[in-house]
């Protein structure tokens, strides 16, 4: 990551995204934003607030409800050298555009032997826990992480939101930029000046020696919270934030588990065939001899997410679930549920 100025400010993830979009619109006139309700309405989650006013309707283009149409249109504009940044209101609606993303954006460069590049960013939030029920609460990132030709990034902090979004917009390939509904208001220190992250690299966001928690996006914030709770009990937990789901930084994951000998994956998606399955296989292949216990996964219950708060809470992976599984992997006695704040 490049840092030209050392000063930082504490801002929200939302503000980091907004400022970065503004900076990139200023930086390169080929950048334009397209999506539903991003202009006059300023975005369903207000990520694009003020940008229509600042840059006008050619640069901040309100699209009708037609995900396949406007995602594909952004792709076509990218083929001619524009650098579109698409907002899809939530990842759930990206399924309507999946033909353009998976069958087209991901394929074109390879299929046409490098004659065309697709500098396209598709931003979209995933995440449950807002009582939005089954169709509006999914974590489908693994669908995209599975596809060669795409890059998939998932920042967990405002600083990474800025640095990864800048990197994504300046990248010449299609990048799925995964946001999370529950992170938009999260605050963090963000360095001023131009910040460009390296896509494809994970980060050890908290060092430790007893066990590795691997996570991404919202999960990383929960993992850090649990790691700090357990630190009070004398456990040293390392947290690896994936940051990039495709490509996957297997070396950083394995180097961590080589050191700790224990690993838990904390993920918001469903368990079977999920991100954790890939991480577990990686650890098995890379550092089998260093493992002192089987890798465990803490993932969402495999059910269409219900609306009722009690059921929603039961289905989603929580900090208490993670703390419990960490203790199990380390073969420690369980603690009473009252002692860990969910």
């Amino acid at each position, binding site marked *: 990551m490049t840092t030209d100025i050392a000063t930082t400010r504490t801002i929200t993830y939302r503000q980091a995204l907004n400022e970065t979009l503004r900076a990139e619109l200023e930086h390169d006139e080929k950048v*334009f934003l397209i999506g539903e309700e991003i202009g006059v309405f300023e975005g369903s989650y207000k990520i694009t607030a003020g940008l229509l006013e600042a840059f006008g309707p*050619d640069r901040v283009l309100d699209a*009708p409800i*037609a995900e*396949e*149409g*406007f*995602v*594909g*249109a*952004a*792709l*076509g*504009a*990218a*083929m*001619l*050298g*524009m650098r*579109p940044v698409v907002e899809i209101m939530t990842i759930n609606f990206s399924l309507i555009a999946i*033909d*353009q993303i998976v*069958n*087209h954006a991901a394929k*074109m*460069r*390879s*299929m*046409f*032997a*490098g*004659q*065309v*590049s*697709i*500098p396209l960013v598709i931003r979209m939030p995933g995440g449950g826990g807002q009582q939005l029920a089954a169709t509006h609460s999914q974590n489908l990132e693994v669908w995209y992480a599975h596809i*060669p*030709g795409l*890059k998939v990034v998932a920042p967990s902090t405002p600083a990474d939101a800025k640095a990864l979004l800048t990197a994504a917009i300046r*990248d*010449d*390939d299609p990048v799925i930029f995964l946001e999370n509904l529950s992170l938009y208001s999260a605050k963090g220190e963000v360095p001023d000046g131009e910040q460009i992250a390296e*896509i*494809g*690299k994970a980060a050890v966001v908290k060092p430790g020696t007893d066990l590795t928690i691997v996570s991404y996006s919202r999960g990383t914030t929960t993992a850090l919270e649990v790691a700090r709770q357990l630190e009070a009990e004398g456990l040293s937990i390392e947290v690896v934030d994936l940051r*990039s789901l495709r*490509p996957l*930084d*297997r*070396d950083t994951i*394995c*180097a961590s588990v*080589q050191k700790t000998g224990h690993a838990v994956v904390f993920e918001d998606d469903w368990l079977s065939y999920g991100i954790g399955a890939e991480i577990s296989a*990686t650890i098995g*292949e*890379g*550092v*089998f*001899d*260093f493992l002192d216990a089987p890798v465990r996964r803490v993932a969402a219950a495999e059910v269409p997410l219900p609306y009722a708060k009690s059921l929603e809470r039961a289905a989603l992976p929580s900090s208490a679930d993670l703390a419990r599984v960490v203790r199990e992997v380390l073969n420690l006695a369980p603690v009473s549920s009252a002692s860990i704040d969910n």
Partner: protein
Amino acid sequence: MAAKARIRPNPVEAPGDEPGSEPNAPLRGYYERMSLVRAFELRASEMYARARIGGYCHLNLGEEATVVGLMAAVEARDYLFTGYRDHGYALLRGLSPERVMAELFGKVTGVSGGRGGSMHLFDTETRLFGGYGIVGGQIPPATGAALALKYREAAGPDAAAVLCLLGDGTTNIGAFHESLNLAGLWKLPIVYVIVNNGLGMGTTVEKASAEPELYKRAASYRMPGLRVDGDDVLAVRDAARSALKQARESRQPVLLEVMCYRLRGHSVVDPARYRSADDTAIAQQSDPVPSFRAELIASGVLSEADAAAIDESADARVSEAVTFAEESPEPDPTDLFAYVYATAVANAPSALPGEPVMDAL
């Protein structure tokens, strides 16, 4: 399928010039191109049967007048997007028969380096922006290309436009309607051409579309819709030229429906048993290549000997293409991952089947 009369042009469309009013040189050129497409497609069919070509292979046989007319209308500065029945368009866009045939053969000298095959011909230089194998997959990107053109240049006679070709079956997918709506809404410089050969694989237009007069769908998007006889090369050329003029000069998107016949099955392997004897007979009677040839001989543009020489020359040209394709090398497997990403990225996968994803620590 009904008789040919059913699909004759709607009166809204201006008729093309009669051959008599055209200078001879372009007419001769059009026949040369029709003959080249015909020869190329017949040879592609033969090469497929001889297992030189794999995968799917869709031919322009019977659509030559449409292909030549459209390609005579489109300018070098325009961008062309097509479906998977794309060989003729690539040839007339100026790609050499050698490179097109080599792509069909899966050779590294092919237009897409052997990575796309028959359905995915692409050439940046001539602005052939694909060849798309998924029905209608090209429509949203073509619309976005027009959006980029609108963004970067003013309308006018020298402006570029997009020509987006699609089949009749494609008009029922969502992306068609979403894209035409965007083009109408945003006033994009694009002409959508429905190459209506009456059949989406084996399903007739009447069985697939509640409004089988497909050009009428333009009304929903406040764009002109018109229908033209696809067996009439001049009518196709003039209608496409006029539509492109509206797109480039007035930012008015247009929907043009071109009525033609598919002489063979959906793809090379399809014997088309679902077609009635009548329908097949009509398709053969309407075959634009011998018709145009006869017309030009009758009007004195060509002599019988000229026409025969053109056909022989086309055939020889295609023979050279086959030789080139046969002698070209296959892509090197060590280049398997060469084009996955434009911007190099850390940890990009490069394992072949069975290779470890990483070295064990």
